[in-house]
């Protein structure tokens, strides 16, 4: 029995209006995730309660962690007259009951269509004395009819700069860099902090969901766990020597904002997933620590190279289909090419001008062998149609790929968001050299496992 039985290959007709099996989701979930990376912050969804419920559920299913967020619970009345009174009441309730330091409001399609002015409402809340001393209400505008989840992440992250960062002196703090990690797992954020520290630098990483969405079991639920970038740090980000934005879509806007607002210079790099992308990150950090790369990091790199040489025979000339967020796809494609797997099909629903150019840079002379699609109509249905016409050896993407995987007998390596059917992925970084080791180990395991299951008896081997 096939799961996706209505998907056929053959001639593919272009669709103008119907998205089938999307390779993206909406802005606010990205904003919510980013806001969870602020210490003692409660994300707030200004709209009907359904959006908030969906975003919390999806984040919880992925991280297997509590995801706390509130909503303005719009009624039909608020959708006509605007949601000001809802937000005022929400602010009062949240500060009274849940007592965060920061409420990070993001909008939804509904409140955006209505045109609610969040800063003005927050101002009103302040006038009415609903915001206790020292507490803050920040916001980001996140309509889903423009952009997608990474855009929401970017908008909320830029909002952190807008609301908090300050330049207190023209002299920046040498040896301190801001790192905007992009939408990666808590373990990735932890790993990025480790790498920067290993390079002898002080860092302000924001947002930072480590110790928020990978909390230890202690028998106590901390509404606001110990992790997250503090408001103090966000303020101080305006005095750092530089900002490194990892991933142009998710992290670029905040870095630009920080340059414009506080004069902190920035470099935008691809997400440090894979060998070359991590090399670039290390080289960038090296600009700020006097040019040193500690042996620890060099050894990690060496181990990755060693692993690749050991694994290469199994990767060579294999093909893969990838979907997800642009920042991830660019770096993943580069990693695959490094080990001689061709990223044959690459699909993202997230719009953004630079993606195709970046993919071109990564693919170079192999462009003609690869199909890349972005934006409307770039969905898993299309990718599956391509696969029906010409199969690949490997799928890399979120859980939704498992339906294609089973129908077509192609192994799936789960990566990106959301992963709804496996536990523990949030503990294992895929950034940095160590992350690449983990990723390649997963890829090889997937390929070998398939071979072990599917090969004929006489070809079944002990050593491989």
């Amino acid at each position: 029995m096939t799961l996706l039985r209505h998907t056929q290959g053959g001639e593919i007709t272009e669709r103008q209006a119907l998205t089938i099996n999307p390779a993206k989701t909406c802005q606010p979930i990205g904003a919510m995730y980013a806001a969870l990376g602020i210490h003692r912050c409660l994300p707030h969804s200004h709209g009907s309660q359904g959006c908030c419920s969906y975003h919390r559920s999806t984040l919880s299913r992925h991280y297997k962690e509590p995801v706390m967020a509130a909503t303005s619970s719009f009624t039909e009345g608020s959708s006509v007259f605007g949601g000001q009174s809802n937000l005022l009441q929400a602010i009062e309730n949240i500060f009274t009951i849940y007592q965060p330091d920061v409420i990070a409001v993001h909008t939804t399609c509904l409140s955006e269509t209505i045109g609610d002015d969040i800063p003005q409402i927050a101002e009103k809340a302040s006038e009415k004395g609903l915001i206790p001393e020292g507490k803050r209400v920040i916001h980001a505008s996140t309509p889903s009819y423009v952009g997608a989840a990474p855009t929401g992440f970017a908008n909320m992250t830029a909002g952190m700069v807008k609301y908090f960062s300050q330049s207190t002196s023209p002299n920046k703090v040498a040896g301190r860099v801001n790192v905007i990690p992009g939408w990666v797992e808590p373990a990735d954020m932890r790993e990025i902090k480790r790498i920067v520290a290993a390079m002898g630098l002080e860092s302000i990483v924001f947002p930072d969901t480590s110790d928020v969405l990978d909390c230890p079991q202690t028998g106590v639920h901390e509404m606001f766990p110990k992790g997250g970038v503090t408001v103090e740090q966000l303020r101080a980000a305006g005095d750092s020597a530089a900002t490194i934005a990892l991933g142009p879509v998710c992290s670029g806007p905040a870095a630009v904002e920080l340059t414009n607002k506080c004069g902190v210079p920035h470099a935008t790099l691809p997400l440090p997933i894979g060998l070359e992308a991590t090399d670039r990150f290390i080289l960038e950090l090296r600009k700020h620590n006097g040019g040193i790369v500690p042996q620890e990091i060099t050894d990690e790199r060496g181990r990755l190279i060693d692993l690749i040489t050991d694994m290469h025979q199994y990767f060579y000339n294999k093909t893969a289909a990838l979907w997800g967020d642009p920042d991830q796809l660019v770096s993943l494609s580069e990693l695959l090419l490094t080990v001689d797997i061709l990223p044959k099909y690459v699909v993202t629903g997230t719009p953004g001008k630079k993606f195709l150019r970046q993919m071109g840079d990564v693919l170079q002379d192999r462009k003609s062998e690869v199909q890349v699609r972005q934006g409307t109509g770039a969905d898993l249905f299309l990718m599956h149609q391509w696969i029906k016409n010409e199969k690949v050896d490997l799928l890399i993407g979120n859980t939704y790929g498992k339906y294609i995987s089973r129908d077509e007998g192609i192994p799936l390596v789960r990566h990106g968001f959301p992963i709804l059917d496996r536990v523990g992925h949030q503990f294992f970084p895929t950034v940095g050299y160590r992350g690449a080791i983990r990723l390649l180990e997963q890829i090889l395991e997937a390929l070998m496992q398939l071979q072990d299951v599917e090969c004929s008896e006489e070809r079944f081997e002990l050593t491989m």
Partner: protein
Amino acid sequence: MSESSTTSDMVLGGDASVTAAVVREELLRDYPAKTKKKREKQIVINDKQHGDDGSLQLPVVAANSRTVPGIISQRGCCYAGCKGVILGPTRDIVNIVHGPIGCSFYSWLTRRNQTHTPTDEHDNFMTYCFSTDMTEENIIFGGEKRLRQAIQEAYDLFHPKAIAVFSTCPVGLIGDDVHQISAEMKKQLGINVFAFSCEGYKGVSQSAGHHIANNQIFKHVIGEDDTQRSKWSINLLGEYNIGGDAFVIEDLLERCGIELVSTFSGNSTYDQFANAHMARLNTVMCHRSINYVADMIEKKYGTPWIKVNFIGANATAKSLRKIAEYFDDRQLTENVERVIGEEFPAVVEAQRKYRPRCTGKRAVLFVGGSRAHHYQELFSELGMETIAAGYEFAHRDDYEGRQVLPSIKIDADSRNIEELRVDADQDKFRESDRQQGIQREKQGYTLREYDGMMAEMKDQTLIIDDISHSEAERLIKMVRPDVFCAGIKEKYSVQKMGVPCKQLHNYDYGGPYAGFAGAINFYEEIDRMVNARIWSRVQPPWENGTPAADAISPLPISMEEPEESTNP
């Protein structure tokens, strides 16, 4: 005139001072005045007053009222109830969500509805997600053209039996006429195309969406196919086949010789809905999401309805017997008794095994519109007590029983949910079925009856409607239940407090829990949860002074002497 049935307050947990009243006080303590006033009416002590005439007076629960903004609630939206819950489990309708991408994405396969297609040739669109993925331009200039085009593209690609369109919040606001477009496309394509105005801001919860969904199915689909059904034919209303529950029930009914015409909507098809009015009896599982459909079918076609419950072994046996009793046939009664007889030994065996391990433990249930009630059956079969419960989106009748229906006030949020006016269908009304119902009632059989959750719960337990996060957290701290039943949004915060949380929306990817086989699964699952060793290992053994310090020291394993070497 009337008096309280028990004299002392029920102790919910911790020490004897933790009564429902004390807990209630604490849950309400820190709310701002306006919020407190509202929550006071939704957090209620189950103070059961028995009248001399045998009547039962229950306190009023202000259910189905709007969640206060800023409260961390369990609830979702109208759209979720309509598209996700009701239409989600039907496999052969192409469900197009008209709106930006998110609403559609989140309801894509996330509810665990299972379906069984007989062959690969049969349609199954449940694995697909269809959206018009509206852009800014559509929001500004209207999305009607895009919707029309999307319907056309879906038709060209899949040639389905029917296409359904769901409006999300922004669509309602910009005023796209989804019904008009659907009607036009229906004409143009020659298949059924219909729409749901289920924008998320309507009503106060998913419940509004159930209603909108069911109304449209009633209007557009039921009654389309008049194929005759057998004398023991039923519909199962309000069973959504989470984790395969409907499969278990289908199997039981089949073995009893009861024909299942349609299930609303677990493992269902369009054709089953179209033919549903030909069943002789409607059985209602989830009262909340669908009782009004049973009423409407009865009015229009004459089919009587009864409440059933297939959660719990005893409840399952009772429900099967009740169906047999309605049809009043010796053969059928024999069939039912035979099936119960076949199933029960395994149930008893499982109870013998798990009951001693669970008995005396305490559960709390905050979920859905019927499960917080139904699952109490299973807990009591394990010897466990439910000390507090509440629904996420039910109405007063689900708490207090159907007799309160006439006294429920319609507020602004409910007013915008259409109530269909239904009259008897001149051609299709079956007087014989109506008469059968009347006949059975004369003989003492009860139709259309549901007493609600509170009547079955113990006196002085705690009822919390639409529980908030802060209330849940305080409740846990005070009563330390052995298991907390809720959904995914609550799951991990509850467990962080060291209390296992059983998801009763999606069953934590387990199940089925319906019927006899399901009951056994559930006993085993609860045993696993309340007795898992890991909960006693949370405190590190080096943190002394913790109350359970002894219990948590590592197991003794003898290690005094090294193994003797085998080398000479």
